[in-house]
């Protein structure tokens, strides 16, 4: 009987570090059967790492395992692979769908677990020659859907489904595993319409009533209040607080999520700069079709000489804004620079009108990995502004000027303290931080009037981070270049920027001066407008 009282899942002082950087510190919590646990926190707070540990993902073992204990039914477990976790009755629905578009809901739900009819032929050719028992497959799928309590046509092809039904198919797949006892949902409502989200919440309650425990990761705090029994708020790898869902409120959670103790860097914040009245850039009704970062309707004005930050949670569309303006993804709306409208979808026109962009995707967009640093830094300036070229035959032949290219590269290597063997080194051989500096140098070499910087500190170490931010600040203050920086780290934005705009659900939910307390931004991030927050 004592088994019954043991919690389904218990974590005891779980910790994890990557290359000496602690990302999880002393995490403790318990989860009972049928309980719904809300897990909230900013990006990088450690939620994904925690789930990776729970699932025995390869990445954890490859980076030296974890500290502390994970207990299921009071017994310690160490999952070597996600398969072990599945066998122990833990299922997870990831943010990205893992569905086959040409299969029906039923086929997807029972993928690779199809019921089979034995046949004589399978004696000869092995078990894979068994035919699939379509009837039982249908039945099992419908069982899982019923258990979830949603309306979903089991015969519908995934490719023809609305996005909500895809999500339900994913969840049904986990439910259909007979041993399922704990289900982890990673931001399941992010892609859903309001109505669909409601259905999902109802489904979570259904599961809970059937004794299945749920860990519910979401940024929509209202949903936590609606469906969870308790809430864990994580920040910087720690559990900041464990709350009873009934007794907490959205402002409290939002504050816990983003609120940091006033640190030294924040207090020594730059003095408030007076905003110029000149509008450099005005954006109206911008939409951008960037997968995972869809922008729906953004309106924004950037003042001359200002350092504007754009923040918001991942997937809300903040990264889509510069990518759309620069024409890297299909976009529409109206963008006016210094009173002149810029045609959207025309990268060249943007660059010609002195806008530069440092992409968040260093390796994919930002760099020529197989070429030298010289090429990487000089290339856009050469192509757009005809710099670093020697002209022969009256400009008919534009020859690469190796000397000038080397000079400018060496200049930036020195200025940004880029660690490399020479300017001829290939970009792929540099570390992430130094690669980022190359990307900055590339943009600086264009001498832009307006600079978009997207996630400049993503995936680089602390020292490089400080250097990169310092370089940007100086570029803004000394040369008066207008900078728009997009970052997931609010503190970083508050350190550098004059104003910060927060993007939620593909639109700007508010713009505040950087000096405002962080919980104000937290409220904007979770989708509460200013007046609601106050």
């Amino acid at each position, binding site marked *: 009987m004592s088994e019954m009282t043991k919690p389904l899942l218990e974590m005891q002082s779980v910790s994890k570090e990557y290359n000496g950087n602690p990302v999880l510190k002393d995490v403790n919590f318990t989860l009972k059967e049928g309980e719904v646990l809300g897990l909230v926190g900013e990006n990088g707070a450690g939620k994904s790492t925690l789930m990776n540990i729970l699932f025995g993902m390869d990445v954890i073992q490859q980076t030296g395992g974890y500290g502390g204990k994970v207990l299921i039914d009071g017994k310690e477990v160490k999952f070597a692979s996600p398969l072990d976790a599945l066998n122990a009755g833990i299922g997870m629905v990831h943010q990205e769908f893992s569905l086959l578009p040409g299969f029906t809901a039923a086929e997807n739900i029972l993928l690779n677990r199809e019921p089979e009819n034995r046949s004589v032929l399978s004696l000869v050719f092995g078990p894979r020659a068994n035919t699939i028992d379509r009837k039982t497959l249908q039945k099992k799928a419908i069982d899982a859907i019923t258990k979830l309590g949603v309306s979903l046509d089991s015969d519908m092809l995934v490719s023809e489904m609305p996005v909500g039904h895809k999500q339900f198919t994913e969840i049904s797949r986990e439910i259909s595993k007979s041993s399922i006892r704990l289900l982890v949902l990673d931001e399941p409502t992010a892609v859903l319409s309001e109505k669909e989200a409601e259905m999902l919440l109802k489904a979570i309650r259904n599961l809970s009533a059937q004794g299945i425990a749920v860990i519910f990761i979401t940024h929509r705090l209202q949903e936590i209040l609606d469906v969870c029994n308790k809430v864990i708020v994580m920040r910087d790898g720690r559990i900041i607080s464990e709350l009873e869902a009934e007794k907490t409120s959205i402002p409290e959670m939002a504050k816990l999520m983003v609120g940091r103790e006033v640190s030294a860097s924040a207090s020594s914040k730059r003095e408030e700069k007076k905003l110029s009245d000149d509008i450099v850039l005005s954006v109206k009704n911008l939409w951008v079709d960037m997968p995972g970062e869809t922008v729906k309707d953004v309106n924004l004005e950037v003042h001359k000489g200002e350092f504007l930050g754009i923040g918001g949670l991942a997937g809300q569309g903040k990264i889509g804004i510069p990518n759309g303006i*620069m024409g*890297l993804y299909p976009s529409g709306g109206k963008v006016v620079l210094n009173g002149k409208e810029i045609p959207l979808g025309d*990268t*060249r026109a*943007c*660059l*010609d009108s002195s806008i530069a*962009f440092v*992409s968040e995707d260093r*390796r*994919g*967009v*930002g*760099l*020529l*990995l*197989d*070429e030298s640093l010289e*090429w990487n830094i000089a*290339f*856009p300036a*050469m*192509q*757009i502004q*005809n710099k670093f*070229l020697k002209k022969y035959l009256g400009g008919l*032949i*534009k*020859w*690469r000027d190796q000397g000038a290219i080397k000079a400018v590269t060496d200049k930036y290597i020195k200025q940004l303290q880029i660690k490399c063997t020479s300017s001829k080194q290939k970009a*792929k051989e540099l570390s992430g931080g130094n690669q980022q500096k190359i990307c900055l140098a590339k943009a600086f070499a264009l001498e832009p009037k307006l600079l978009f910087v997207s996630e400049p500190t993503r995936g680089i170490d602390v020292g490089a981070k400080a250097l990169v931010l310092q370089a940007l600040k100086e570029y803004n203050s000394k040369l008066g270049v207008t900078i728009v920086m997009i970052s997931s780290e609010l503190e970083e934005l508050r350190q550098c920027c004059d104003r910060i705009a927060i993007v939620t659900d593909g639109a700007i939910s508010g713009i505040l001066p950087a000096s405002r307390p962080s919980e104000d931004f937290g409220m904007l991030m979770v989708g509460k407008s200013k007046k609601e927050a106050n």
Partner: protein
Amino acid sequence: MEKVRSFLASFGLPRLIIAGFLLLLFIVAPFVGIRVGASISDTLARFGMNSIMVLAMVPMIHSGCGLNFGLPLGIISGLLGATLSIETGVTGPLSFLLAILYSTPFALIFGWGYGKLLNRVKGSEMMIATYVGFSSVAFMSIMWLILPYSSPTMVWGYSGSGLRTTISTDGFYSQILHNFLCLKVGTIEISFGEILFFALFAFIIWAFLHTKTGTAMTAVGSNPIFARASGISVDRQRTLSVIMSTWLGALGILCYQQGYGFIQLYQGPMYMAMPAVSAILIGGASVNKASIPNVIIGTILYQGIVTMTPSVMNNIIHTDMSEVLRIIVSNGMILYALTRKSGASR
């Protein structure tokens, strides 16, 4: 040991085997009664004939269009130029220049269309290029029969219409480059004409890759998204590279004809892309990186094997299995390049 391994990795095992094999052939040759001088002259002559077609691979590889299996399209432009030049009746060196001149507009137009097509099928260029090459050869086979050529050197004697399968370039531009500045050093015969002709175009390509546009083209091949984010029109660069490759293909076949002495029509150009593709791969190029040294080394190695194996084999085992070996080596090389993880890291 580590060093050896990294060297092997960068040089490529197959390339090493081929180079070693060729070396072995040259070492064995004198013992089985083959005059090495003649073999070297032969290899050099073949280098002169084939090198420009191999060079035609470079622009397309640079812009990321992959291996130019559609070389036959360029060859067809060259064939049109060659036949038109002969049709005019002009003889001697001038006919060669005329052939180049006439083939150029065809190469530009075909290359432009071919480039546009490849832009619409990014990612599957090589397969489609192969079949574009085949289809165009098949289409031109019909055209050779129908087009109203009348020069008696080219038209079938008995029916008076339709071009012959092979047309001699004797009296027109046969050996025109080969005999220009042809020196004899001992037993080795070196044709500086052909080498200079190749060097001229190799230099042009090398120089082009050092210009602003050439730099853009390389960037497109190295990382098309980077290039796009830098305001480069990826499609335009790719089209340009395809036009260049096609034109070089046209020149290449003219150069080949002057050395070989014949124009081969109909199904002749069908499989001509394969030797050129495998030569540049043997020279060290990958599906998305190629340089002029790759062209030179590759052509010498490939043509060396093609000339040396038959004679050596014949003298050793009295069986000529060189053709079969050539098929295995050249296609094996292409297969090796295709199945390796894409050379560049994107």
